[in-house]
């Protein structure tokens, strides 16, 4: 039951800043020794019923197993049977394992190269789509690949890129007699990168489009009046005003790139039954192979250690990224 404050409090009304996005709790308590407006007090009481269920489910089903995994990473374990405590041995070994380093390198490649490609393409598409006829159709079509299960791509990859496959049969009449070896082990990872660009660009384009759409038109008019070129317009108007959106997308992409697994797994190996070539491994694949490859005795300690390690490294990256992308929000 509320603290019986039915009449408006004079102090509270004066605090309103119409453009403020931050809740006014702090300012309220700065005003003398008031404990905050009644709604804030009530709100705080809602902590347990509102946040509680989410907190409990998340902790029990996610954080606790993760902590369990950290504990496992300090042992040598084959998935069942006796566990042998080895302390930080697994971590040291993984740091020295060139395969882990190359897998993590691949992950970084995905993060930066594919990320850059995605965002450059997304920005470019956003600009082209901005006043294009039929932009809704185009936007919907390019968004769609994001929704498709990775296994589909894996199965189709063989069909399309095999030596006798569709791409080569398309190139043959064009006179290309010796097409590149699309699925050679060294080329699989670049192919995966291209596939990722194709499937993810639509998703981020959609988000960026809306960010760009919110820019009021009078900015463009000012640009035209000032005689700005398209590039200058991009640099001085569009980028700063969509920086927030871009920042969020960057963080999302960073985090999801660490987890990329299924597409790599089905691209190499017989659509999920075999192990892909080591040149294409990412950090998540490394973790999985150590635990579930089926070719040799599992090493869960090493697998969880590698997962914890990549998580730690990526967290550092995210923090640095947020710091680098932090700018004052431009109000418009």
């Amino acid at each position: 039951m509320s603290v019986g404050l039915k009449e408006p409090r004079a102090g509270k009304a004066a605090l309103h800043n119409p453009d403020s996005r931050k809740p006014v709790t702090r300012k309220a308590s700065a005003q003398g020794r008031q404990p905050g407006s009644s709604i804030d007090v009530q709100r705080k009481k809602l902590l347990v019923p509102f946040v509680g269920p989410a907190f409990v489910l998340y902790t029990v089903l996610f954080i606790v197993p993760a902590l369990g995994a950290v504990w496992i990473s300090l042992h040598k374990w084959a998935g069942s049977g006796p566990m042998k405590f080895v302390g930080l041995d697994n971590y040291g070994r993984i740091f020295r394992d060139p395969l882990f380093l190359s897998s993590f390198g691949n992950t970084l490649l995905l993060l930066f190269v594919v990320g850059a490609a995605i965002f450059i393409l997304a920005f470019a598409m956003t600009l082209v789509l901005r006043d294009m006829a039929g932009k809704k159709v185009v936007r919907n079509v390019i968004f769609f690949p994001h929704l498709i299960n990775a296994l589909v791509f894996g199965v189709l990859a063989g069909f399309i890129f095999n030596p006798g496959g569709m791409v080569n049969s398309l190139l043959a009449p064009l006179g290309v007699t010796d097409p590149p070896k699309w699925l050679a082990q060294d080329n699989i990872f670049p192919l995966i990168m291209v596939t990722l660009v194709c499937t993810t660009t639509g998703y981020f384009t959609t988000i960026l489009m809306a960010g760009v759409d919110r820019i009021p038109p009078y900015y463009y008019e000012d640009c035209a009046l000032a005689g700005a070129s398209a590039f200058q317009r991009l640099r001085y108007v569009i980028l700063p005003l969509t920086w927030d959106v871009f920042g969020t997308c960057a963080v999302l992409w960073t985090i999801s790139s660490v987890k990329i697994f299924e597409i790599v797994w089905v691209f190499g190996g017989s659509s999920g039954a075999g192990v892909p070539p080591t040149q294409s491994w990412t950090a998540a694949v490394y973790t999985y192979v150590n635990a579930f490859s089926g070719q040799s005795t599992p090493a869960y300690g090493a697998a969880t250690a590698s997962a914890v390690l990549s998580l730690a490294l990526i967290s550092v990256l995210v923090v640095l990224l947020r710091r680098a992308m932090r700018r004052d929000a431009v109000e418009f």
Partner: protein
Amino acid sequence: MSEYKLLAPLTARRRGRRGVSPALRGERSVVRGIGVGLLWLVVAISIAALVWMVAQAFRDTRAILDDPWGVPASLDFGNFVRAWTVGDFAVATWNSLLTTVLSSVLTVAIAAPCAYYLSRVDNRLTRGLSLYFILGLGIPAQVILIPLFVMLNKVYLTDSIIGLNLVYIGVSMPFTVFLLTAFFRSLPLEMEEAAALDGTTAFGTFWRITLPLAKGGILTAFILQVISHWNETLLALTLLQSTEKYTLPVALISFVQQQTYSGADWGGLFAGLVMVVLPMLVIYVWLGRRLTEGLTLGMGK
């Protein structure tokens, strides 16, 4: 002012296709023309790829291998029937449907109040909690698989759709809370303040004022969860053991594996792929507009 900002894009769009400043209309350049052309090419190829995949599902293995570009001779649904029965796709589709809808609804129902609280109350605790939830975004499923299985088994929730649902809800918390927090923050405070002045309780404000305003964002979060749960493979593969509880991705993987060992059935495989992709297509065509709109509003600030 804030309502204006919220509605500005919509009004702009209502101005029709030419909703662009007169200063920019008529700006034509070669580069732009090429860009537009390329985009339409991409669209054409994507649609063609989809049509091709569906077409192959009507042909048999030998025909597909001999001539991948060919068109089906007849609308023979045999492949679909085979995938449906032999591949256990019928049961799997039902399980996937049940799991996806249930877990997505519950995920959003549990995450929304949490996100609302975190977006409205700003102190050390909520900032810490927000960070705590975001932390989960970086943890891949492989890490938690075995401990999760052991825990669930203690409470007899392995090999159960209920257990799978609970797990999906738990692992979806980070992203949904993150998305909805950003979204709720973008909603104007004025109406809630006004309601408070009128004497509504905090809960009442949430229920009667904020939630209706947030319909778009909540729908978006729901759709995103549907998509991710429909395609989720690893957890389902490990936590489900009986074939009659398999979800669609698991059924698809065993179907693919089976093809490899006991004679390839590319026609059936394509039929299976179509069955996995089709629901996504339907949902997308039906709710896609809401999805992209809500996504953008949520990410906007």
